[in-house]
């Protein structure tokens, strides 16, 4: 148990205990432990090949780890079990044959019958976040940023308390990425979800997160778990805040010194 910002005791929503992954003779991920408190935003940064996506896929239930580890959400083991996290990648994974509305309700469609309540919720969330006019559009009519918004709405209406986001804005141009980051913070604040965010963009990780977990290249392991001192709500102004710069240099140093060793 940790004591949160307001002195409230925060339970860990996600607990990862000595999770490692070996493919043949190659250790991709050294046994790693990590806890993510309910309602917090935690980023994992690291160079490519540091095992962050491997860790991500294990938590998502797509990959089974080496024996001996454990992953729990709200105290329940989710190892090798699906249906316990929200999931979003760099690719929007919208299906071209469904409209925006039907793409938002895709998770319901994949698991059960889509109800009128599902549709109402999809319309509501799309309208609230500025895509109400596009409900009956097919994804191909949307820009990259809009498509990622729809993908995130699909993730939200899956109603999982824990959201796994793997470089969701990695394919967007710099301008759109900044807009999307601000938007994500707004939505995160309003919906109170817990986010585990994977990125290789240091600025992005500082701008968004409460904590930044720095990982080393293969075999991937956690080299630092930093608490972000920057207050919320955050605006783009903090990109030039001295504490932001300091944080950035710390992380870059950690990443860089690792590369050299």
């Amino acid at each position, binding site marked *: 148990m940790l004591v949160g910002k307001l002195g409230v005791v925060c339970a860990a929503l996600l607990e990862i205990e000595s999770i490692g992954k070996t493919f043949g003779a190659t250790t991709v991920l050294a046994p790693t432990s990590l806890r993510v408190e309910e309602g917090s935003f935690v980023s994992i940064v690291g160079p490519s090949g540091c095992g962050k996506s491997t860790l991500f896929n294990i938590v998502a239930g*797509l990959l089974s780890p080496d024996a001996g580890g454990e992953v729990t959400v709200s105290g329940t083991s989710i190892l090798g079990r*699906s249906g316990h996290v929200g999931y979003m*990648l760099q*690719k929007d994974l919208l*299906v071209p*044959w469904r409209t925006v509305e039907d793409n938002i309700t895709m998770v319901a469609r994949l*698991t059960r019958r*889509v109800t009128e309540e599902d549709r109402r919720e999809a319309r509501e969330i799309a309208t609230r976040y500025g895509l109400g006019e596009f409900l*009956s559009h097919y994804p*191909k009519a949307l820009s990259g940023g809009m498509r990622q918004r729809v993908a995130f709405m699909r993730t939200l209406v899956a109603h999982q308390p824990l959201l796994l986001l793997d470089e969701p804005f990695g394919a967007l141009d710099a301008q759109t990425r900044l807009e999307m980051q601000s938007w994500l913070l707004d939505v995160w604040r309003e919906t109170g979800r817990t986010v585990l965010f994977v990125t290789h963009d240091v600025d992005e990780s500082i701008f968004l997160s409460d904590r930044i977990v720095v990982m080393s290249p293969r075999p991937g392991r956690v080299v630092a778990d930093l608490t972000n001192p920057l207050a919320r709500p955050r605006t783009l102004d903090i990109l030039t805040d001295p504490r932001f710069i300091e944080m950035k240099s710390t992380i870059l140093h950690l990443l860089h010194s690792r590369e050299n060793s």
Partner: protein
Amino acid sequence: MKKVLRSVLVPLISIGLVGLIWQLVVVGFHVQSYVAPKPLDAVNAVFSNWGILWPLVLGTIRETVYGFLVGAVLGVVLGVVMAKIEIIRRLLYPLLVLSQAVPIIALASPLVLILGFSVAPKIVIVAWIVFFPVTVNVVDGLTHVDQDLLNLARVYGASSWRTFTQIELPAVSTPLFSGLKIGATYAVGGAIIAELVGSTGSSLAYYQEHASSNLQTAAVYGTTLVMTVIGIGWFLLVAGLEILLTPWQRRTTARRRRVASPSGSH
């Protein structure tokens, strides 16, 4: 409206051009009428014998449509089974290629011996031709569905049936229709070959043979035109079905659903 005009007018112009070249060649080189008629004479031969031709045309259409449907269903089922079960894919792929290496005409005779002079061997021949491009395209499409999309379904705990109906099947629609359109183009050819080998008198192919041996050249060419029109018509029907069933290929928005729609997933 302009778009419709263009998509109808342009093909008509190109068909008209072919007719014009035909006319010029026949007139310009003084081709004898028993070798090749003028295009309008060929068309005329069709209309003046329409009473005899019509039931034969219906017969060919029936063989084509039934054979196509059997071939398409067989092609999809075989494609799905082969895509899903690797050992079956390995077992059947060589046989699949083998089936198409056999000359169709060489296949027709034994089939007529087995099935008789009924409509059955014609349907089998057409289905034989149609299933192949369908199966190959379905196998290809299903084995190339975006793995990340399948992972997304897995993460959310989708059953394999729902993953199949909601992701894999719609994802395969484009290659499926490519296969169906190829099949539609060849289907009439198969029906005609089957008629040639296995009919006792009342068929389009037999009618043409008969006209040919009587030096009714205009009727021979006219029958070819009729066969071609059946082929084009069937292709257009399948292509139209694709447009109808895959609106996302052409449109940017779906027609708005009724707000109180009671339908669930489908």
